[in-house]
């Protein structure tokens, strides 16, 4: 920004560089694990290996939970949470609150049940502080591990959350300082990086990727540090100031519906009827059922549902637990709508990116990958400027080892998970052990005295092998086969297996490819042209997808045009293909530009009505016609001018020949001068 003085810029550069360097490796770990955890639910379904279709909480739930609840003592019936795990089984946790001796805090205590969603049989029961034991309620140790690694870096509470919160703040400050330091942000948005391995090229690539992911970095840092600090620092602090330290009172004020107390024993309403009403009212799938004061006249049922179309936040529908009457949709916080609640409800979708299903999750993954590139390129840039110092060379080596080692260790965690499943081991033990083994192997490789480029190639090869082995190990560990997955509609199984195999192929190509960097202006033009061509190609396919979309055609009352699902899939692949080609060409910066540009053009294409598109087409045709006419006129004028010039030149030549002095005698043909002039003029006419 231009209003900053030199000293302010210098300070901001120092803050940007040092904060990124000191915490960059940890930040990379949090962002990369977060990028993978965006698909945590799909990873859970893929890894859980269940042969049942993952059904939402609907249908016969009452008949499965009521017998269990009726057999419990009243002490546990004050609060009951019900959700479904990755295998499609019901998990029910009736609980009271007790002081946890491990943490010294009031925590949820009670029996937790896993109930078969088809037969209603109780598969397991454990009693205790259940949220401390993921193996009691989670079907996928892999998902738990990845989420834990992302949220608190596997550091015990509350310190892990505080560390990730500080990293979130660091990311916000890096984004803000980067924004303020960069003087020509908008102008440089589409300027391709200068090619080559020079320092300036590395700086260009970092700035380009950073500029495109700036808003996302700020949002992620903001929402991430909110989640980290809310439970550990802010919540207790506000409870202390506003509620005299009573956190339960604060939770009730924010999250629980107001109820007039009435302890009269009353039979609980039909839960299935309540679920049907909730789904009728809000078309999103049910993700959580909370029952308060089961078996009393003042019982309440909270149904949490996925956001409906065009919605961003979860929907919270409340029912009377005694009569089954619908009491209304409640804001996420408070009992009446407020701006605070509206903003609060945006935090989760902005952080998790789950508001539009796989599409928004894919965009979040892409932006997360861009953030990883920004962090790594920033650290490498910092190191390159200090290559002369041994300490920084060592740091550069650590950056290389971490950048490849962390994804490899995450793959190793997956291998540990599947191997434990195959050998009847404990996946909740072997998943982190697999990660540790992977980490140790990478650190050991980093200590081998080979040059960094070679080391990087070794790591890429390892990553390729790790990716290729994961689907095979899953199948070896009695995972669902592809035909079964297709038959049961388990899209996550097929998609993730194919993703890993594709990644393995791309990494193998990258490993085998000799390192080469184009140099010179021609190469730079090629990069820019390749990016523009990729964006145009993807946008063209997107436009085709939009034009042939049946729902869109119905909505705009256009002539229906049936489209084969495979054609739609092929076109969707066609949208992504140019980006993959850019990546395969080792053109990271172009890939990020392509990703951002296609997001924007895709949005424009989707938002444009057919009338506007027609008007735009007409306008473009008119402009083209005008340009063509202008070009034709210009060509005609140029031709006439050329002819005239030619004629003038011929005449001048003839005139010069006619006025030539006769003093110099030289042999000449036996032709008259007038004949020569006449011949030249005739040639000019021709």
């Amino acid at each position, binding site marked *: 920004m231009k209003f*900053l003085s030199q000293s*302010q810029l210098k300070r901001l550069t120092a803050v940007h560089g040092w904060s990124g360097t000191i915490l960059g490796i940890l930040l990379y770990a949090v962002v990369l694990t977060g990028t993978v955890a965006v698909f945590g639910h799909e990873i859970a379904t893929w890894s859980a290996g269940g042969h049942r279709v993952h059904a939402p909480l609907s249908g016969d739930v009452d008949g499965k939970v009521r017998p269990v609840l009726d057999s419990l003592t009243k002490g546990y019936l004050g609060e009951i949470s019900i959700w479904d795990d990755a295998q499609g089984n019901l998990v029910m946790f009736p609980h009271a609150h007790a002081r946890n001796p491990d943490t010294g805090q009031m925590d949820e205590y009670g029996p937790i049940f896993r109930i078969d969603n088809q037969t209603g049989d109780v598969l397991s029961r454990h009693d205790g502080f259940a949220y401390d034991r993921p193996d009691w309620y989670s079907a996928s140790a892999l998902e738990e591990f990845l989420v834990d690694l992302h949220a608190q870096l596997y550091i015990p509470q509350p310190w892990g959350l505080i560390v990730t919160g500080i990293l979130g703040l660091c990311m916000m400050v890096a984004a803000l*300082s980067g924004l303020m330091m960069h003087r020509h942000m908008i102008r440089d948005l589409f300027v391709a990086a200068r090619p080559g391995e020079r320092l300036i090229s590395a700086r260009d690539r970092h700035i380009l990727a950073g500029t495109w992911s700036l808003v996302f970095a700020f949002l992620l840092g903001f929402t991430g540090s909110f989640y980290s600090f809310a439970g550990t620092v802010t919540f207790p602090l506000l409870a202390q100031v*506003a509620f005299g330290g009573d956190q339960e009172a604060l939770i009730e*004020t924010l999250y629980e519906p107001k109820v007039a107390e009435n302890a009269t024993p009353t039979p609980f309403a039909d839960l299935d009827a309540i679920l049907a009403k909730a789904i009728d009212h809000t078309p999103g799938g049910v993700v959580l059922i909370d029952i308060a004061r089961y078996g009393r006249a003042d019982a309440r049922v909270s149904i949490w549902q996925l956001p409906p179309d065009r919605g961003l936040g979860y929907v919270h529908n409340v029912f009377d637990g005694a009569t089954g009457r619908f009491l209304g949709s409640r804001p996420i916080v408070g009992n009446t709508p*407020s701006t*605070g609640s509206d*903003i*609060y409800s945006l935090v989760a979708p902005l952080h998790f990116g789950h508001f539009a299903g796989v599409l928004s999750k894919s965009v979040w993954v892409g932006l997360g990958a861009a953030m990883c590139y920004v962090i790594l390129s920033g650290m490498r840039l910092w190191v390159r400027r200090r290559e002369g110092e041994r300490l920084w060379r060592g740091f550069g080596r650590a950056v290389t080892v971490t950048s490849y080692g962390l994804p490899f260790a995450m793959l190793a965690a997956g291998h540990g998970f599947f191997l434990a499943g195959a050998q009847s081991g404990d996946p909740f033990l072997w998943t982190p052990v697999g990660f540790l083994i992977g980490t140790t192997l990478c650190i050991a490789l980093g200590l081998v005295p080979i040059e960094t480029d070679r080391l990087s190639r070794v790591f890429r090869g390892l990553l390729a092998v790790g990716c290729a082995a994961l689907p095979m190990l899953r199948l070896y560990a009695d995972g669902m086969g592809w035909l079964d997955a297709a038959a049961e509609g388990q899209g996550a199984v097929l998609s993730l297996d194919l993703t890993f195999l594709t990644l393995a192929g791309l990494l193998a190509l990258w490993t085998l490819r000799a390192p080469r960097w184009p140099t010179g202006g021609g190469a730079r033009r090629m990069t820019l042209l390749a990016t523009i061509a990729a964006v145009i190609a993807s946008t063209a396919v997107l436009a085709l997808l939009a034009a042939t979309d049946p729902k869109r055609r119905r909505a705009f009352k256009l002539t229906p045009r049936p489209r084969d699902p495979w054609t739609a899939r092929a076109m969707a692949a066609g949208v992504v293909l140019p980006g993959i080609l850019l990546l395969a060409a080792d053109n990271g910066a172009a890939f990020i530009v392509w990703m951002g540009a296609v997001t924007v053009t895709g949005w424009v294409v989707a938002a444009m009505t057919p009338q506007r598109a027609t008007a735009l087409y007409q306008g473009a045709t008119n402009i083209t016609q005008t340009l063509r006419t202008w070009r034709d006129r210009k060509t005609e004028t140029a031709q006439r001018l050329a002819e005239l010039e030619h004629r003038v030149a011929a005449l001048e030549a003839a005139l010069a020949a006619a006025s030539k002095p006769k003093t110099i005698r030289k042999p000449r043909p036996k032709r008259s001068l007038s004949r020569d002039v006449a011949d030249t003029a005739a040639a000019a006419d021709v």
Partner: protein
Amino acid sequence: MVGGFPLKAATVLRDTVECNPTVSRWLLAGPGALTAAVTIIAAMPLWWPPGTAGVDNIVYPLLLTPLIWSVVFIYTCLEENLTRGVLVIGSATIVQGFAAGLALLGVIGGHAP
């Protein structure tokens, strides 16, 4: 002499800050910014309007915690006049900290929004 002590204190503060600008800025941007942010967040339920739902004075400090720290931190980095920076951050910390302290002791503010 009227106003002698505050003037003298301000002079001493300015001299101390200007003699050690690097250390002063580090202290201001590190512990200073953190303390200011924490006291502002702690006192926000007392002065932020509760809104129609009666929860905004809790929800906003909860939500804005990262942003408040970032703003204070960036300000401490950008402020050219370090003495003025110390005075601004120090005053904010004292005023907000005093209000939050009174609330913690139960002197002001209710125990519900």
